[in-house]
C-alpha cells in the first residue's frame, strides 16, 4: 500500500486529468458549458473569432472575477456579503478623490484604500461572529451605512477626481498584445487558488464551512477565520473599486451596485454551495466567464432588455439545477443515514 503515490492516496487531486475531473465534477461541468457557449458566440458573430475578443471577455470579466473571490470565501465560511457594492463604490470614490489624475499620491493612497475596505470587511466579520448578527443582516446594514457615508463624504457626487494614470494604464493599456489587467488577473487567480485550496488557512476555511462546531472544538479560531474571510472580501472590493475607476476614468456612486447579486450568482453558478464548505475558486472563475460570455452573446444578438433579463435568470436557475443534479449523483453513493436534505445548523458555536 505504501507504494501508492502521495497524490493518489490523497484522493487523486493531482492524479492526472481523470482524477481532477472525478473530484471536481461541478467545476468541470461549468467549464464545459462555458466553452460550449463560447463556441456558440463564435458562430453567432464571426467577428468574435479573434484573439482580441477573447481578451475583451477577460477584461470585462475581471471585475467580477476579483469580487467573486471575496464573495466566494465568505460564502465558503457560511456567510454572505451584501456590502460589496458599497465597498467597491467607496474604494473607487476614495482613490479618485485622493489620487486624482496624477500618480503622486498613489503610493500611499492605494494601500490606504485597501486597508480601509479590508477593515470594513473585518467589521462585517466581527459583527457576524462576536456580535452574532447573521451575516446577511450585518452586511446589509454595513452596506447601507457605508453607502450613506460615501454619499455624505461626496455630498452626493464624486465630482472630484479622475482615475489615476496608473490605474488607467492598468486597465486599458496592452503589453505584448495582452491587456495589462490580464497579467494581473493571472497573478490574482494564482495567488487566490493557492490561498483557498493549498494553504493551511484555506483548509481551515473549508473545515469551518463544513462544520463550524467541529472546527471550534478542533481548536480552530473560528472567529478569527471568519473575520479574515470577510476581510478578504473587503480587500477584493477595494481592488475592484480601483479597477473600475481605472476602466471608466471617473467614479460614480452606483458603480458597485451591479456586483452584489452578480457576485453571488457567479459563485453559485460556479458550483459552490451557498450553505458553505463546498466549492472552489476555479469553479467561480468559470461561473464568471460563463455569465460574461453570456452577456456578450446577448449583446451581440441585440435582444430586447426584457429577454436578456429572462435569459440571465433562466441560466442561473438552469446552472443551479445542473449542479444540484450532479451533486445528488455523487451524494447518493455516500448517503447513508441522512434523511433527505437536511440543512446544516448555522454557526452556533
Amino acid at each position, binding site marked *: 500500500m505504501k507504494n501508492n503515490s502521495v497524490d493518489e492516496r490523497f484522493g487523486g487531486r493531482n492524479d492526472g486529468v481523470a482524477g481532477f475531473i472525478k473530484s471536481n465534477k461541478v467545476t468541470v461541468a461549468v467549464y464545459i458549458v462555458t466553452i460550449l457557449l463560447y463556441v456558440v458566440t463564435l458562430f*453567432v*458573430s464571426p*467577428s*468574435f473569432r479573434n484573439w*482580441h*475578443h477573447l481578451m*475583451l471577455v477577460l*477584461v*470585462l470579466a475581471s471585475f467580477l472575477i476579483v469580487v467573486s473571490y471575496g464573495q466566494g470565501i465568505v460564502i465558503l465560511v457560511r456567510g454572505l456579503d451584501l456590502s460589496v457594492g458599497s465597498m467597491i463604490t467607496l474604494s473607487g470614490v476614495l482613490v479618485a478623490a485622493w489620487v486624482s*489624475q496624477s500618480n503622486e499620491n498613489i503610493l500611499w493612497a492605494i494601500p490606504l484604500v485597501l486597508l480601509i475596505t479590508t477593515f470594513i470587511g473585518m467589521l462585517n466579520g466581527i459583527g457576524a461572529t462576536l456580535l452574532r448578527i447573521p451575516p446577511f443582516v450585518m452586511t446589509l446594514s454595513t452596506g447601507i451605512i457605508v453607502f450613506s457615508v460615501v*454619499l455624505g463624504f461626496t*455630498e*452626493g*457626487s*464624486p*465630482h*472630484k*477626481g*479622475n482615475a489615476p494614470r496608473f490605474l488607467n494604464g492598468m486597465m*486599458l493599456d*496592452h503589453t505584448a498584445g495582452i491587456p495589462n489587467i490580464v497579467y494581473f488577473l493571472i497573478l490574482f487567480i494564482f495567488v487566490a487558488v493557492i490561498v483557498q485550496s493549498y494553504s493551511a488557512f484555506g483548509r481551515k476555511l473549508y473545515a469551518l464551512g463544513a462544520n463550524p462546531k467541529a472546527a471550534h472544538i478542533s481548536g480552530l479560531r473560528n472567529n478569527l477565520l471568519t473575520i479574515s474571510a470577510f476581510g478578504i472580501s473587503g480587500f477584493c472590493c477595494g481592488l475592484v473599486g480601483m479597477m*473600475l475607476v481605472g*476602466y*471608466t*476614468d*471617473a467614479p*460614480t*456612486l*452606483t*458603480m458597485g451596485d*451591479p456586483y452584489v447579486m452578480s457576485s453571488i450568482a457567479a459563485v453559485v453558478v460556479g458550483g459552490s454551495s451557498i450553505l458553505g464548505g463546498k466549492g472552489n475558486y476555479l469553479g467561480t472563475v468559470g461561473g464568471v466567464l460563463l455569465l460574461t460570455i453570456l*452577456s*456578450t452573446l446577448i*449583446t*451581440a444578438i*441585440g435582444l430586447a*432588455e*426584457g429577454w436578456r433579463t429572462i435569459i440571465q435568470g433562466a441560466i442561473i436557475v438552469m446552472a443551479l439545477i445542473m449542479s444540484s443534479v450532479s451533486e445528488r449523483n455523487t451524494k447518493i453513493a455516500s448517503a447513508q443515514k441522512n434523511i433527505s436534505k437536511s440543512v446544516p445548523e448555522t454557526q452556533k458555536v
Partner: protein
Amino acid sequence: MVMGKRIKKSRVVNRSILMVLLVSLFAVGVMFVADDAKAEENKRFKIFLSLSYSGNVWQSSAANIVKALAKTPPYDEMVELTEVISGSNVEKQISDYQSMIANGADGIISFPVSPTGLNRVIREGSKKGVLFFMYDSTVTEPSAYNVSYITAGHGENTAQYLVNLMGGKGTVMINRGVPGNSVDMRHYNGSMAIFKRYPGIKVVNEYYGYWDDAKSQQATSQALAAYPDVDGICSQLGEYGVLRACLASGSKKIPFIVGEDTNGIRLAFADPEMQKRGLKGVSAGSPPATAGYAFKLMMELLTENRKDLVHNIEYPLPWVEWDKVKLCKGDVFEDGCNCFPADKVAPTMTDEVLHPVLLPEISLKSAQTGEPMPGARIQPLPKDVTEARSEPGINCNPKSGKCVDPVYEPYMVTPIPVPK
C-alpha cells in the same frame, strides 16, 4: 429562594438599564445630527428639492445649481431650501413629497422618479397650493410644471446629424438608457424614426447603457466586438463610456459618436489626435441647467413677478457639433465656449450646467460646489417661455385627451436627401 429572586431581579434591572441606554443613545444621535436650520423662522419660502438618484455627476450638478441659486441674493433672504434624496424608489419619493407637503412646502422642485407614479401625490399637493416643478424628467400630472428638454427632440436631431455625417448609409449601433423608461423611449423613437427614412442605414445593434458611463462602456465593448467596423454610434447619456470603449477596442478607427453633454466627449471632439482617427459627432443632451431654469421660474411665480405660466415648458436642446467645441478659459460660458479643460472637471461632468441667458448667475464652480458666484444677483428671466408639445406618456396624460403625438422632425440640422 430569596437569594434567587434577588439575582433575577438585578439581572432584569441590568437588562433594563442596557435597553434604556441603547434607546436613549439612539435618540440623542437623532437630535445630534438634526440641523439647527429650523431655529430661524422668519417668513421665507419653504422650497424642497427632491432628487431622484444622487450618485452621478448630472444629478448633483443639477442640485448644486438650485442650491447656488437659493443662496444668490436676493433669494438668500427669501428661500429656505431643503434637499432630499429620494433614491430611485417611487415609494420613497411619494413619502418624501408627502412629508414636504406636511411641512408646509411652498414649492417642490424635483427630478421625478416616475412619470406616472407620483401623479396622485402631486395632485393632492397642488390642491393644497404647493407648486410642483419637475426638471429634466417629467410627470404626466397636469397640475405640475414640467421644465424639460425631452420634447426638444434629442433623438431625431442627433440621429439626423449622424446620418448626415455618414452620408446616409452605413451601420449604426444605439446605446440606450434605462430600459422601461419613457425618456429612453422618446429618444429611441426619435432616432429610429430618422434611421428608418434612410434605407442605407442599418441599425445593427442596440443595447442599454443605463445612462451610466461604466455600464455604457462595458456594453459598448461587447457590441463593438460583434460589430468592430460599425460606422456610427448613437448614444444617450453615457457617451464618454462609449468613447472609451472605442478607444480600448484596439481598432485604429473611431466611429462617429453622437451623444450627450459630458466634458469628456467634447474634449475628445476637439482633440486633433482623435479627429485624425475619425472621431466626429455632436454633443447634445440633457442639461442640468434645466433645474436652475425651473427654480427661477418657480421663484418668479412665488414672488409674483410672473403672472401665469404654461405647465409644459421646453428647455432648448443644447447643441455642440464636433468642430464647434471651444475650451472655456474661465468658469462661465463666454465667447461661445462650451467645454472645460480636463484638469478642472471630471470627464463625466455634464457641461450644460451653464446658460448665458437663462442662468447668468451660475458659474462652473457653483455647479460643482453649490456655492453662489461671488457678486452675482438673480437676473430676471426672459418674459417668454417656449411651450413644450404635450406628448402622451411624457408630460401629458393620454386619459385627459389633449395630448399630441410627437413629430420626429429634426430642426438643428438640415436632413440630407436619401441617397439613391
